[in-house]
């Protein structure tokens, strides 16, 4: 059937929160009332990215996005736009105007983006495998099985330069190679969807918006490394992701995309979902493995690496959701195509989640190497309430705190590492000038104290010790020797903790000390410039 228009309503968790359910129902009513059912197709889809402004809907083919809708607004959109073909300016997305261009593709929020991983998010019904197939889904898998050997696949991925998107940035092709050549069977492929990094929700929205993309990536990966069993470990709080993924797996099994003789080939592979139970550290790959085995989620010492001895002691490859979501496109379009996107050392795109004091908080996908400034001001729409920028933290809670002078750093693995930060999971936290850096640091440390697995001494005992020194500083009571101790402790945690949680916990503290030195000095003297801390000279006591 041919539809004149498609209306996509976002049903990602963030919009669900804001009542998209009501929107969908209202729209369905309106379409019936206006007898448009045969002309306009209503698609419930994944996140559109502009979470801050939800509930939202997009009308295609024009690509017009309406935001912050109420049920009454929906009636107006239906009447005006869908029936009469006239825009409703008052409901357009924030950066669009009738004059400057209203199409999604013309708005900077979308025009600056390059969507590989998110290409279907917001455009297809995630609960429909047909929709995915219509959008060229599973083509990469079919052609790969037809035309490439597993080593070919590994070569393509190695050549593409794809690096892991879960935080460490390890080259995906090499990890696959290790697992392929490791001895032991069966081999496991684990998709890491634990996503506990504060300020990160990209994996959830990919899972919710395009679950089949991840499955396709996993099946190709399994083919390459010789894995027969796949597990998607999804954070326990991600109810909708778990349901959508389980549905997608069931659909894929029905079509012979999982199980034995996948698409008529020799390939055997099946996937199960495991749910976490609330532990950030379980995102660490070996802790995740422990958790799947039914244990406390405590990281294992390495070596041996999971590729040698992973789940139940067998060779295991752990990849992040976004890493796997890149795979079908790379195989479909080739390594050269992929390499042209992004930078030489960090090819491809990266999905970021914008949070904090920023106008367009939400989900974006941009080529690697874009500057912080472009992301914050052009895509993110800048700082709300007329305040000015103070700090951006990339990479999540264990990333560095960057200041104004860092706004032109390209966002890629190496550039950020060069400034004491990281790309991490793609979290980007923006803070305006009304906030105190020491207060924020305390908030970070509180997180680590709570989320340390408690296994190794430097982290279990070190995180609370760091917190108490910073707390002292925030009260204006820190001494010179406290500051020296802080640095010595940080060095020890970084060098000697068992896993990257303890190793990186001091990063935000150290970067804050360097990049916001003036403010630190002020606290040292008993002053909190933003009056967030209860310092010796007074000021307000913060939550921490």
């Amino acid at each position, binding site marked *: 059937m041919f539809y004149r228009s498609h209306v996509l309503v976002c049903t990602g*968790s*963030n919009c*669900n*929160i*804001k009542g998209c359910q009501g929107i969908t129902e209202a729209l369905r009513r309106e379409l019936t009332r206006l007898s448009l059912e045969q002309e306009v197709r209503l698609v419930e889809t994944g996140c559109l990215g502009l*979470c*801050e402004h*939800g509930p939202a809907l997009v009308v295609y083919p024009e690509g017009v996005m309406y935001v912050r809708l109420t049920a009454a607004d929906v009636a107006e959109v239906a009447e005006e736009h869908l029936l009469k073909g006239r825009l409703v300016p008052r409901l357009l997305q924030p950066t669009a105007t009738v004059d400057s261009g209203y199409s999604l593709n013309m708005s900077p929020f979308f025009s600056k983006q390059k969507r590989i991983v998110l290409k279907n998010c917001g455009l297809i019904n995630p609960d429909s495998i047909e929709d995915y197939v219509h959008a060229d889904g599973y083509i990469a898998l079919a052609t790969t099985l037809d035309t490439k050997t597993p080593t070919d696949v590994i070569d393509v991925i190695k050549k593409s330069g794809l690096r892991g998107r879960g935080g460490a940035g390890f080259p995906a092709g090499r990890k696959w190679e290790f697992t392929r050549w490791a001895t032991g069977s069966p081999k496991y492929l684990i998709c890491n969807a634990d*996503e*506990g*990094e*504060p*300020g*990160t*929700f990209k994996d*959830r929205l990919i899972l919710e918006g395009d679950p089949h993309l991840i499955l396709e990536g996993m099946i190709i990966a399994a083919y390459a490394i010789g894995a027969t069993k796949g*597990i998607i*470990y999804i*954070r*326990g*709080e*991600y*109810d909708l992701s778990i349901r959508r993924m389980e549905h997608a797996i069931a659909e894929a099994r029905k079509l012979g995309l999982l199980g034995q003789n996948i698409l008529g080939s020799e390939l055997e592979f099946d996937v*199960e979902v*495991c*749910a*976490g*139970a*609330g*532990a*950030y550290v379980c995102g660490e790959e070996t802790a995740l493995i422990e*958790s*799947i*085995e*039914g*244990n*406390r*989620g405590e990281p294992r010492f390495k070596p041996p690496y999971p590729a040698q001895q992973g*789940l139940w002691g067998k060779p295991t490859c752990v990849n992040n959701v976004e890493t796997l979501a890149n795979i079908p496109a790379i195989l479909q379009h080739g390594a050269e195509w992929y390499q042209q996107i992004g930078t030489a050392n960090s090819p491809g795109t990266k999905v970021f*989640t914008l*949070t*904090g*004091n920023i106008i367009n*908080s*939400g989900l974006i996908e941009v080529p690697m190497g874009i500057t912080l400034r472009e992301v914050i001001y052009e895509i993110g729409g800048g700082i709300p309430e007329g305040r000015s920028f103070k700090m951006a*933290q990339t990479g999540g*809670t264990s990333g560095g705190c960057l200041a104004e002078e860092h706004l032109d750093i390209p966002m890629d693995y190496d550039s950020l590492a060069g400034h004491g930060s990281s790309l991490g999971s793609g*979290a980007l*936290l923006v803070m305006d000038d009304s*906030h105190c850096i020491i207060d*924020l640091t305390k*908030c*970070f440390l*509180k*997180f680590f104290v*709570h*989320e340390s*697995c408690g296994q190794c001494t430097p982290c279990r005992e070190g995180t609370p010790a760091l917190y108490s020194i910073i707390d002292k500083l925030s009260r204006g009571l820190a001494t010179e020797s406290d500051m020296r101790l802080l640095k010595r402790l940080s060095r020890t945690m970084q060098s000697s903790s068992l896993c990257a949680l303890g190793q990186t916990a001091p990063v935000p503290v150290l970067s804050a000390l360097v990049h916001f030195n003036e403010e630190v000095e002020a606290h040292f003297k008993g002053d909190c410039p933003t009056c967030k801390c209860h310092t010796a000279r007074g000021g307000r006591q*913060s*939550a921490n």
Partner: protein
Amino acid sequence: MTQSMLIQRFIGEPGGLLKALHALQNSNTNNFLSPQDLELVSGAFGVPLAKVWGVATFYSLYSTIPRGRYIIRVCESAPCHVVGAHNILTALAKNLNICTGETTADGKFTLEVTSCLGICGVAPAIMINDTVHGNLTPESLASVLALYN
């Protein structure tokens, strides 16, 4: 279905022990893992009770003390922190007249703080059981809580 039938299918599955704990906690009227629940898992999975206890006390989604019907979880990670999560927590505590970790006298609400819930797109945000409420202000809380009346 008896509790032991409820967990039977998870034995031997990847992540089975965690799934069993989830299932038991969800079916417990007080939203927690009772000593009997833990003993059941210990027996069914052939794992010492101390280890089941060790697992249950490791993960923050499990509780070993009875809780209310609705668990309110307030995110206190940085993204919510910088947009005023603290005010939400204070307002909630005042509104419900309980401290963090406590349950209202009528056994309805338990107030907990949590690390990031992955809903920072709409920060400050809270979860009440499996439902997320975002872009909150201390003023809008009353209407959210009213949904649970």
